[in-house]
């Protein structure tokens, strides 16, 4: 690939069929810092998390009522079909809309390199609609906690992420209760089991900051979970003591575990919300976090086998700038390991965007966006675990996965084939780098439509 193709594909989201490649690739990347929009119109018009929490509460109430009615009528309260029960349908609609907005923003953004980084961070701090409580909030989470902090500090993004209702619900933090908190004590006196949930504490350490096997132990996880008690949502709980102000993040002193915590040998004597905040601040500045983030960024841009020297430079920059994200992005822009590295196999998300951009499509209805990515194996905001989607070729280059892409390529070509000359488009997208076998396949195609399908399925399109 030449420099323009690397800027477009490895840094960006793929070339546009109706635009020439940038003549000055490095300057084109630099210009994106000013052009990036945290909230373009299509995203600003989506439902915000305050309303979504209300909708979630309504859905839960609705479901409860339906259950009670069914029980009174003696019917099965749990319909066994694959469709979501009615109460959650409005939230499903919000998800579909937001998925469409995400694709449209990626297709029309003046800053595709930075859009790629939005997707990177959203996946690093992944939440998943596998959990029905995250269904409506998944889009709002990315739009409210990731996008506004893309050009800020890592610690700012971390703070926004761990306080966002989407994360608090997805990793069960909203329900975690200090056993010796005022409410925990009262519950215990009445013989009720109310207490800790370690889920968020563990994943902050393992996935969001330090990384796995970096020296913390089970005791540290439990202590951090205790420090985090009280970080919850207001405006959704049934219980009056937990209703709180909202609907939004709420530090609920009534469920916070009192006392000093010791995490990785350091004592945290703060009280209230400040205690877990102090832990987060230390985690955001920790050398293990710097290494973890540096490695993931290097893998995303320089190839599956990470160049150690690049990781070291990213790590040093992370520590010396106190996690300034644009400084990290500029290390990548200056890295010969990225400009000269080996190509990455495109994830289904990356391939879909590249194919849509190549064919000049500027927006996609949410339903087709969500459906296509589902079929390609990377449903939007739906990784099967909080680790997010994997960033290695082996995770995406499967036999059946390739067939799916060819099926989608055929459908895209049917939609736009007549107006596009695949031979010209191939020249624009891959210039001198087009392989003889791809060129021959396109030349010999039986129709313009088939030629376009072949171009979209070509080996050159599968990698960035």
């Amino acid at each position, binding site marked *: 690939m030449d420099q323009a193709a690397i800027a477009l594909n490895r840094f960006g989201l793929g070339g546009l069929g109706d635009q020439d490649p940038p003549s000055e690739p490095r300057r084109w990347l630099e210009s994106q810092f000013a052009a990036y929009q945290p909230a373009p119109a299509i995203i600003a018009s989506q439902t915000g998390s305050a309303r979504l929490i209300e909708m979630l509460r309504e859905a839960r109430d609705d479901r409860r009522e339906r259950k009670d009615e069914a029980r009174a009528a003696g019917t099965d309260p749990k319909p066994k079909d694959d469709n979501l029960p009615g109460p959650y349908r409005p939230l499903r609609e919000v998800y579909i809309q937001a998925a469409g907005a995400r694709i449209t923003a990626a297709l029309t953004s003046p800053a595709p390199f930075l859009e790629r980084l939005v997707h990177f961070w959203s996946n690093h701090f992944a939440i998943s609609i596998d959990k029905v409580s995250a269904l409506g909030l998944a889009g709002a989470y990315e739009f409210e906690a990731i996008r506004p902090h893309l050009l800020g500090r890592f610690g700012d993004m971390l703070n926004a992420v761990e306080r966002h209702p989407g994360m608090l619900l997805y990793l*069960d933090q909203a329900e*975690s209760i200090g056993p010796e908190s005022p409410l925990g004590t009262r519950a215990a006196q009445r013989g009720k089991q109310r207490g800790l949930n370690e*889920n968020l504490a563990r994943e902050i350490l393992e996935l969001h900051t330090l990384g796995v096997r970096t020296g913390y132990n089970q005791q540290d996880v439990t202590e951090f979970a205790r420090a985090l008690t009280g970080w919850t949502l207001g405006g959704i709980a049934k219980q009056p003591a937990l209703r709180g102000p909202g609907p939004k993040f709420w530090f609920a002193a009534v469920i916070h575990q009192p006392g000093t915590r010791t995490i990785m040998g350091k004592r945290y004597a703060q009280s209230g919300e400040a205690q877990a905040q102090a832990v987060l601040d230390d985690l955001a500045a920790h050398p293990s976090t710097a290494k973890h983030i540096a490695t993931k960024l290097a893998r995303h841009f320089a190839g599956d086998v990470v160049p150690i020297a690049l990781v070291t430079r990213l790590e040093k920059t992370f520590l010396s700038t106190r996690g300034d994200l644009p400084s990290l992005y500029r290390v990548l822009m200056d890295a010969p390991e990225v400009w000269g590295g080996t190509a990455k196999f495109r994830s289904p998300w990356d391939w879909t965007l590249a194919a849509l951009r190549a064919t000049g499509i500027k927006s996609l209805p949410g339903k087709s966006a969500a459906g296509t990515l589902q079929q390609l194996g990377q449903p939007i905001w739906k990784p099967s675990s909080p*680790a997010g989607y994997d960033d290695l070729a082996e995770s*995406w280059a499967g036999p*059946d996965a390739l067939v799916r892409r060819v099926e989608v390529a055929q459908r895209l070509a049917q939609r736009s084939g007549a107006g596009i000359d695949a031979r010209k488009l191939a020249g624009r997208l891959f210039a001198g780098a087009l*392989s003889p076998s791809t060129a021959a396949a396109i030349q010999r195609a039986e129709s313009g439509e088939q030629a376009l399908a072949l171009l979209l399925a070509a080996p050159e399109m599968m990698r960035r």
Partner: protein
Amino acid sequence: MLLHRRQILAATAASLLLPQVSFAKAATERRLVFVIQRGAADGLATLAPTGDPGYASLRGDLAEDLLGLPKLSGMFALHPALKQINAMYGARQALFVNAVGLPYRDRSHFDAQNVLETGGALPYDRPDGWMNRLLGLLPAGERGLAISATIPTALRGPVQVSSFAPSALPDASADLLQRVGSMYADDAQLHPLWEEAMQTRAMAGDLVGSNAKGALAAGKLIGSLMKGAEGARVVMVETTGWDTHAGQRARLNNQLEGLDAMLGALQADLGPVWADTLVVVATEFGRTAAVNGTGGTDHGTASLAMLLGGTVAGGRIVSDWPGLGQSQLYEGRDLKPTMGLDAAIGTAVAEHFGLDPAMALPQLFPGSKDPRISGLIRG
């Protein structure tokens, strides 16, 4: 008889490395299905030790569905959602190995799954998976298959394997598929993947594009890909959703119902082939002995493995039960592993395929530190 070049090469290479492995009994009619439960399935609710004096108080509300159940043995009751697995147990085609663990103890899903799938002693110790190495021990040409679009770690490695999962997309035309095949002919990465995909699609027949959904359809689909001379001999199925930190009772019930329906449908679809089949169901680690503060359980240590199928010496529970007393728990919170999960899987799989476990176990699970567990498969 003409031997294919690939078979000769594979046999030579294998015999150089493993002079004592006998292929004689590696009956090609044998099938293996490995069902991984990603997310740490709760063994203490799946095969509940209701006869342990500590169980009811540790588990609180979570024990309610389980305490009154009839026991399979003096100690354990099977979760009521597992109706068909219960019937297999009655027919001596289900065996449970309880309180098993991996050499890895740090409670990260992703690291532990990596150890379970690679068979290493440490996470990311090895690049290839134990199922791929198993294929290397079987006669050349036996097919490995992942029921997903891509290849999970356990099946990754030098032996080419296939992947398949039902798709709701409109089929690409046969002509386009063929042209894509020619276009990929010189691409070292895409060409072998494409060849595998085309072979598997041919086998799946009319299930391609039928948008098979749900557990019943999945079981039937897996069965259809395993039958016949060309059917896959080594199959991996991934299940998710076992990470029940909150609201475990209802969620786990649904999960187990789905697993049970899938395996029941697989048994029905395989018909006589079930007699030659071993299904291994396993998870990366267990969950805390006690219920947590949110009606769920957190990451634990020892768990449960299930062996199902016609070759299993079933109707038994194999366990060196460590007990649930506070001093008996691992780090005061988890069920203590008393047997190796890797040793159990490795030994059973070796015996199932007629391989010598003493030779095969170090190949499949080089990280295993626990003694072999023989007799899991009918002799």
